[in-house]
């Protein structure tokens, strides 16, 4: 298992997958006691990381604008009025 310096860089999928594999391994009793405690701490961190991604991420809506040199820029965009009518 490669040691990562910054778990913050993990995507939700990566963190979620690693969390799953740790839990499965613990459930199957694959770790020794000390290893399990270390892994469970990591699992907790991964869980918190996942949760943070989900709950702290602000839903941003942006639209792309092209600068004069053709570079795209993302600028905030107001969500259109919420009409639930489907087309």
């Amino acid at each position, binding site marked *: 298992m490669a040691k990562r310096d910054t778990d913050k860089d993990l995507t939700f999928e990566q963190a979620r997958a690693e969390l799953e594999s740790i839990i499965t391994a613990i459930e199957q009793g694959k770790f020794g006691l000390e290893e399990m405690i270390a892994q469970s701490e990591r699992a907790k961190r991964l869980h918190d990381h996942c949760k943070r991604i989900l709950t702290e991420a602000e839903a941003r809506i942006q*639209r*792309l604008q092209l600068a004069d040199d053709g570079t795209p820029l993302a600028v905030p965009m107001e969500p259109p009025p919420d009409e639930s009518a489907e087309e």
Partner: protein
Amino acid sequence: MFDRDRRQTIPQAPSNLRPLTVSQLNALIRQVLADNLPGTIHLVGEISNLSRHSSGHVYLTLKDDQGEIKAVMWKSNAAGLKFKPTDGLEVVATGYVDVYGPRGQYQFYINRLEPRGVGALELAFRQLHTRLEREGLFDPARKRKIPRFPRTIGVVTSPTGAAIRDILHTIRRRYCCASILLHPVKVQGEGAAEEIAAAIARLNRFSDSLGGIDVLIVGRGGGSLEDLWAFNEEVVARAVHASRIPVISGVGHEVDVTICDLVADLRAPTPTAAAELACPVLDEVLDDLAGCELRLRRAIRNHLDHAHRDLAGIERLEWFRDPCGHLRRAEQQLDEMLSRLAYGCSRRLARYRERLHEIHVRLAARQPTARLQSEKMALRQDLRHLVRMVKHRLELDARGLESFHARIEASSYRQTLARGFSITRLKRGRRIITGPDQVSPGDLVITETAAGEFESRVEDPRQPRLFD
């Protein structure tokens, strides 16, 4: 002009070449057709003379106002028809031309038959479809997985259409933590396809500097086939195919299938459905995460419980409670064995010693000097014993003699003799005779009287008669 060229070349053939058989000619024509006609032809025409053979094959003629061609559709292709071809129906037939030798006819062999709808557009669609399919752009194997938890969703659509409204609404309702990046484009009319293709390429190229885009939604709301046409253009197909970011296509309504839909990694029936496929429902993800936490806790608790039970089990073990007991018992056993060994040895030793002694004694007994010695000793002892016996006897005799004399004196049977009684004895042995049965005729007897003895011979010993 073509006809004139032909007329010029064909008459030359018999003069230059050997005569051909009919079959050879048909084969030649077949070769010319195969070499000069495309392998797949989309043919527009009207059906006439249609007959469905009992074998399942369909025979028909395709015609327009100036000509006609015989056509056949084999059973295997005819079986897949979604509609029923009838005389007078305008169709687009896809297939190839070949020569039917037995009749000397060239025929059109139909692989696919479609009713002719919009004509040119449909044909264009078919042609592009055939080409891209052959190139492998629709290959399911090259479709990428859509990430389950996108952080940023790129959307390529019109900023004013119903599609963007539905997409935004759907994503915010389901998965409010995802960022949405709209690349506004024209979705219909002149240049729309190029704009869509450029937008897909641009979002791919600038993905990193825009914070990373996990998935693209390309689409628009419903409309006529002409309205949706941009999504059937090759540039769009190529751009979707080239995209590194997985693409979900959501164009028009459920019934509309575009080239873009077929090339995309995932086809959604509508833009709303595309948004649903692009992201999970946050609450479900949170539930799942909570489930993970629960499982984690449970797994740890199980693990710890198990460890505790294990430890308790070990604590209950005897060797754990009294680790020295085992040692002591072993020691005791060792001691016992040692003493048994010592006892056994000494007993054995004693027996050997005993037997050795016996042997020694027996051996000594067999030694001649020792034997002599013992014989001598025994002899000496016997001698001593004898001497003692004799001495004792003599003493005894002396004493007996004295008492006998006295007793003789006392009883003095001779006094009885003096009164006239006598004692008769056998001369031989001097045994006193007490009855006639003790003598036989001729025996010499001595009779003792008080005055002396006399000898006589027995004449007639008679049995004493007590009462005669």
